[in-house]
């Protein structure tokens, strides 16, 4: 195997059904060693089932799971070198923090002194040293979260699975824990698979993101790749905030320009996979719209809603019967008020074209 890079984790063609519900549908992806990998998608797309499959808690119907090149599809849970943080934290309620930390080591047969050292080390790292004798239900949400993390890290797993670990925390704590998790990842260098329905978490933490839908990966890539080149309207709608504007359009005979309610848009590219007259959707990021300067090609529009968000302002305008949202720096939106007529310019080099029927990106 020397020379060839074996991925830390590889799922090929994994399927799992619960009765008539297909939780995982021919799911395949691999994760390089040491990568912070995010499974992203709304609830019930199979993120948790995927993590539970990797941990060995779920017996799959079909497919193959490899860890460091070894087939562990039917291997016992213990010995996979995988640990997991649950959304509910799943702390042992009858044990103290110390005993919670010690549990995986005890089950592994680690000696008492070694356990004590590592528990203290872990507690210090997570600022829990003063909480070791407490029961979980006497701790705050943030502390419980850190106990759950510590219990997973203390075994020094090769792969750490995190199932929406921040969902049960308040906004401020979430922010702190995001930084904390990145720090721990840098410090230990283990492979992390992180499931989240939160776009901000996915983009800010993931070195690589797999967008899931109906138990399968729709697209994977770096945050930039997903943002710049979404493969379909599903990914385009999930990544980027505020969401991409979608405008109905028809592809012209030259396969390059589009007829839209906003007028004719010249993309400057040729969409060879499209057909003349094909119904399409034009996706425009809110950040690719701005008020036009004089003499520039512009679409007439009327402001109908202004949402100041501090340093930026989201301005909703109506143009050709469509509602478009644009993100403007605070100072360039300051003069606008609802009802104003504003000609807007579109950055045509950055528009996305999708097939109306399938939602797939046109190339």
């Amino acid at each position, binding site marked *: 195997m020397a020379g060839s890079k074996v991925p830390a984790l590889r799922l090929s063609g994994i399927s799992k059904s619960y009765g008539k519900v297909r939780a995982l549908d021919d799911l395949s992806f691999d994760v390089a060693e040491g990568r912070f990998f995010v499974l992203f998608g709304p609830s019930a797309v199979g993120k948790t089932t995927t993590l539970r499959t990797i941990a060995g808690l779920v017996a799959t119907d079909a497919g193959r799971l490899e860890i460091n090149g070894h087939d562990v599809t039917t291997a016992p849970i213990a010995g996979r070198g995988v640990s*997991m943080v649950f959304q*509910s934290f799943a*702390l042992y309620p*009858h044990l103290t923090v110390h005993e919670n930390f010690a549990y995986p080591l005890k089950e592994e047969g680690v000696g008492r002194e070694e356990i004590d050292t590592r528990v203290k080390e872990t507690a210090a790292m997570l600022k829990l040293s003063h909480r070791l004798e407490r029961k979980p239900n006497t701790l705050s*949400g943030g502390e419980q979260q850190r106990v759950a993390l510590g219990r997973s890290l203390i075994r020094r797993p090769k792969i750490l699975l995190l199932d929406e670990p921040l969902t049960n925390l308040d906004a401020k704590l979430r922010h702190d824990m995001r930084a904390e998790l990145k720090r721990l990842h840098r410090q230990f260098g283990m492979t992390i698979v992180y499931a989240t329905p939160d776009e901000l978490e996915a983009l800010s933490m993931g070195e690589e993101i797999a967008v899931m839908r109906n138990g399968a990966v729709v697209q994977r890539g770096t945050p930039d790749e997903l943002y710049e080149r979404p493969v379909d309207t599903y990914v385009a709608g999930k990544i980027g905030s505020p969401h991409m504007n979608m405008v109905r359009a028809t592809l012209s005979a030259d396969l390059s320009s589009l007829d839209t309610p906003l007028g004719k848009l010249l993309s400057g590219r040729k969409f060879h996979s499209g057909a003349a007259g094909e119904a399409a959707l034009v996706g425009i990021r809110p950040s690719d719209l701005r008020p036009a300067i004089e003499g520039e090609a512009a679409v007439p529009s009327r402001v109908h809603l202004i949402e100041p968000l501090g340093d930026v302002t989201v301005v909703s305008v109506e143009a050709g019967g469509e509602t478009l949202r644009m993100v403007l720096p605070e100072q360039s939106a300051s003069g606008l008020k609802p009802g104003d007529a504003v000609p807007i310019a579109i950055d045509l080099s950055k528009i996305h074209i999708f097939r109306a029927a399938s939602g797939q990106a046109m190339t």
Partner: protein
Amino acid sequence: MAEHNSIWETLGFRKASGVGEAGWGRTLAVAIVSFIYFLPVLFIIFTAFKPQDAALSVPPTLSPTSLFGLIPEQFVFTPTLENFGSVFMRSMTAGGAPEPTGFDRYFFNSIVIASSSVLLALVIGTLAAFGFSRYPLKGNDTYLFIILTTRMLPAIVVIIPVILMFRVVGLSGSYTGIILLYTAFNLAFTIWMMKSFFDELSLDVEDAARIDGSSDTGVFFKIALPQVIAGLAATFVFGLILTWNEFLFALLLSGPDTRTVPVAMNQAVSSGGRGTDWTLLAAIETLFLIPVFLVTFFLQNHLLRGVTFGTVKR
């Protein structure tokens, strides 16, 4: 008084925090209702200490003390321990010499039979309940329902088939027989109780233990069981009370050597043709109350407190 408090605390009472949020009025109302509930028990306990004439006097004597002259003299009786002596030793014929009544044996029987059948049911039932809760069979609920049907009929209805079964296998009158019977009866209750406690636990916690390296057996003993200690205590106490007081099966299925107190009590007060000896009956009942009272008393902290409360966010 401080020393007094600590004694009560070591016995399991929480430190009295005065009148709670409900206020004096409601507390008083509850105290009155509780006292009315407790009256029959109190009456029996007093009767156990009364001389025979005081027990049957009209108007009835009500108190062993005049409470510093508060209670008129004709309602006060002089307490005696004589009745407790005659539970174990008394003359069976008029004017005859005192002889052992065998009640020491009956108390021993009651304790052995009730505790072993309840414990046995607790062990088997808890394992079964975990199975029903975590590894459901096809048609799981049907089996649970069938298990409960054994408790749907009054004992008198099933007694005939049970007697016949015991005759056939030769279990009548033996400890094994009556213990097995009570175990079977307690099982239904234990399985249903414990299953509901296991159902309440977070499955994530058990999965976390599996990932941390525990076997299924380890998950049961180290993770699930410690979380349902309150449930075990409650099930144990309820089962014990039911079994301790059971009369009909014991009457028909226990032999002279395995007779339990409720059966012996019945025979003691109705034999001899002298009418019912109320003070003797009251003394037996008072003694009979002590073991269950103690067990409940020492388990009360577990009964009141669920250890899993508020530990898992859902």
